[in-house]
C-alpha cells in the first residue's frame, strides 16, 4: 500500500532525475537498437588504475577535481567504450572479409589505450581450512599495489576482490581482508578523534598503539613473517558501541597515508593486523570478522592470509 507521501516522493524523484545532465552523446535511455554512435575527444590515456574499492569509498579528495581532471576521467571511460566499439568493428570487418576470397584485412589496432587491466587467473585449488571441512573451490588471484608494494592474494569462490580488500559476497556486515598504509589511528572512534601526537612510523610504534586504548582489548604484539618480510601481529576487537550513536558518523579506526580512513562495520568486529616492514614501507594487512562469522568463512579468511605474496 503506497501512501500519498510515497507517491509524491516517486513523482518528485522521477521528475528530478530528468534534470540530470547526460553528457554522453549516446546516453539517451532509448538508444537505437544495437546502434552505437559515439563522438568524443578521445585521448591516448594511460590511467594508472590504482586499486580502488567498491563498497564503501574509494577516494577522498581534499578539493574538488578540476575541470581538466574531470575531463580526463570522462575521456578515460568514454575512450574505453570507444576502444571496445572500435575493436568490435574491427572484428566485424575481419569477419566480413574472411567470407570473401581475398586476403583478410589486418586487424585494426586501437590507438586508444584506456586503462591498465590487471589480469586475473582462475586456478582451481584444494583448500584445507584451519577450521571447517576441506573444500575444493575455484580461486582467483587478486593484486593490490600500495605505495609501490605489490600484494598478491587468493580470492576464494564466493568472495569479491575490491582491489584494496577482499570481502565475502553479500555478507552483512562486510568482513574480509584489506590492505592499508596507516598513518595514524583513532583514539576515540565515535566521534572520530585521532591519536595526538600521531603514532610513530615504525612497525613497533603501530603494533603497540592499541595497547593503551580502552575498550579494544588489544593483544600484545607478536612476531610474524609474511612471505619473507618481518613484522608484528596484533589483534583487537571493536568495542560494543551503540551503533545508533554513530549513525551516519562511522566508527573510524585507521587513518591512511595520503588521506582517507578505514572504519569498522559494526560493534565487536574482530581485527587481526599484520604490520610489516616491506623495504621501508609499513604495510598493514587487516583481516576482520564478527563473532557470528561461520567457520567456513573464517577458513576462507585464513586462506586469503596464507596466500599473500609480496613483491
Amino acid at each position, binding site marked *: 500500500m503506497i501512501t500519498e507521501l510515497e507517491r509524491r516522493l516517486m513523482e*518528485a*524523484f522521477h521528475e528530478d532525475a530528468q534534470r540530470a545532465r547526460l553528457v554522453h552523446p549516446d546516453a539517451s535511455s532509448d538508444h537505437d537498437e544495437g546502434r*552505437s554512435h559515439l563522438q568524443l*575527444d578521445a585521448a*591516448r590515456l594511460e590511467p594508472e588504475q590504482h586499486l580502488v574499492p567498491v563498497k564503501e569509498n*574509494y577516494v*577522498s579528495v581534499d578539493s574538488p577535481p578540476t575541470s581538466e581532471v574531470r575531463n580526463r576521467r570522462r575521456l578515460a571511460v568514454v575512450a574505453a567504450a570507444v576502444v571496445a566499439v572500435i575493436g568490435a568493428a574491427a572484428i566485424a570487418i575481419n569477419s566480413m572479409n574472411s567470407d570473401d576470397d581475398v586476403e583478410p584485412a589486418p586487424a585494426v589496432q586501437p590507438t586508444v589505450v584506456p586503462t591498465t587491466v590487471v589480469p586475473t587467473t582462475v586456478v582451481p585449488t584444494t583448500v584445507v581450512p584451519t577450521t571447517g571441512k576441506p573444500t575444493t573451490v575455484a580461486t582467483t588471484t587478486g593484486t593490490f599495489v600500495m605505495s609501490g608494494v605489490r600484494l598478491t592474494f587468493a580470492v576464494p569462490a564466493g568472495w569479491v576482490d575490491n582491489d584494496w580488500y577482499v570481502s565475502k559476497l553479500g555478507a552483512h556486515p562486510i568482513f574480509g581482508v584489506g590492505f592499508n598504509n596507516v598513518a595514524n589511528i583513532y583514539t576515540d572512534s565515535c566521534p572520530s578523534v585521532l591519536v595526538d601526537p600521531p603514532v610513530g612510523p615504525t612497525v613497533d610504534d603501530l603494533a603497540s598503539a592499541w595497547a593503551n586504548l580502552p575498550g579494544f582489548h588489544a593483544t600484545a604484539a607478536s612476531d610474524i613473517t609474511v612471505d619473507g618480510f618481518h613484522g608484528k601481529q596484533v589483534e583487537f576487537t571493536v568495542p560494543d558501541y551503540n551503533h545508533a550513536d554513530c549513525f551516519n558518523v562511522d566508527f573510524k579506526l585507521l587513518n591512511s597515508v595520503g588521506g582517507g580512513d578505514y572504519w569498522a562495520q559494526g560493534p565487536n568486529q574482530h581485527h587481526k593486523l599484520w604490520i610489516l616492514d616491506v623495504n621501508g614501507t609499513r604495510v598493514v594487512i587487516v583481516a576482520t570478522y564478527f563473532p557470528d562469522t561461520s567457520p567456513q568463512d573464517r577458513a576462507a579468511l585464513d586462506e586469503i592470509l596464507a596466500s599473500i605474496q609480496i613483491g
Partner: protein
Amino acid sequence: MEYNGTVAPDVSEGVVARRVEISGTIPAGMDDDFALFYRDAYPGAVRLAWLLTHDHDAAEDVVQDAFMRLRPRLATIEHRNAYLRTAIVNGCRDQARSAGRADAGLRRIGVGAEVSSTDQPSELLDVVARLSYKQRVVLVLRYWADLPEGEIAEIVGTRPATVRSINARALAQLSKELTR
C-alpha cells in the same frame, strides 16, 4: 569494511587528445561487454548520482570513477548493476564529504550562480535534502530505483530490517517537516 582510500591518479600526464568519430552498428555477437554495459547503464547511473548530489559535475565524476573501477572486473562481477550502484552511492557520499557537505548534498542546489532555474527542487525535495545521507540513499533507491529492501541493504551495507527502519524514520521526518 569501509575505507577512504588514497586518491587514484586518473590519467598520466602528457595526454594527447584527438577527435574520434565512430558510427556503426555493433555486430551481433561481436559487441564488447563493457561498451554495451556502459551505454545501457550510463543514463541511470548519472541520474542516481544526480539525485544524491544535485551537482552535475560531481555526479559525472562519481559515475566515471565507478565505471573505471568496474571495467577491469566486469566479467567477474556477478551483479554488475548492483556493483555500479554501490560504487555510485559510496562515491557520492565521498564527494559530499570531501567538499564538507556530508548532509547537504541536495541542499547545495540553489546555491551558486551556476544553478539554473530548471534545477530548482520541489518543496518535498528540499525537505528530503535535510535528511541524513543514508536516509536519502534509502529513499532514492526505494522510490526512484524501485529496489527491494534486500538490494538496498546490500548497497547501503546493512540489514533489510535496518533499511525498513531507516525508510520509516525518513518518511516520518518528511511528514513532520511538511506539516509544519
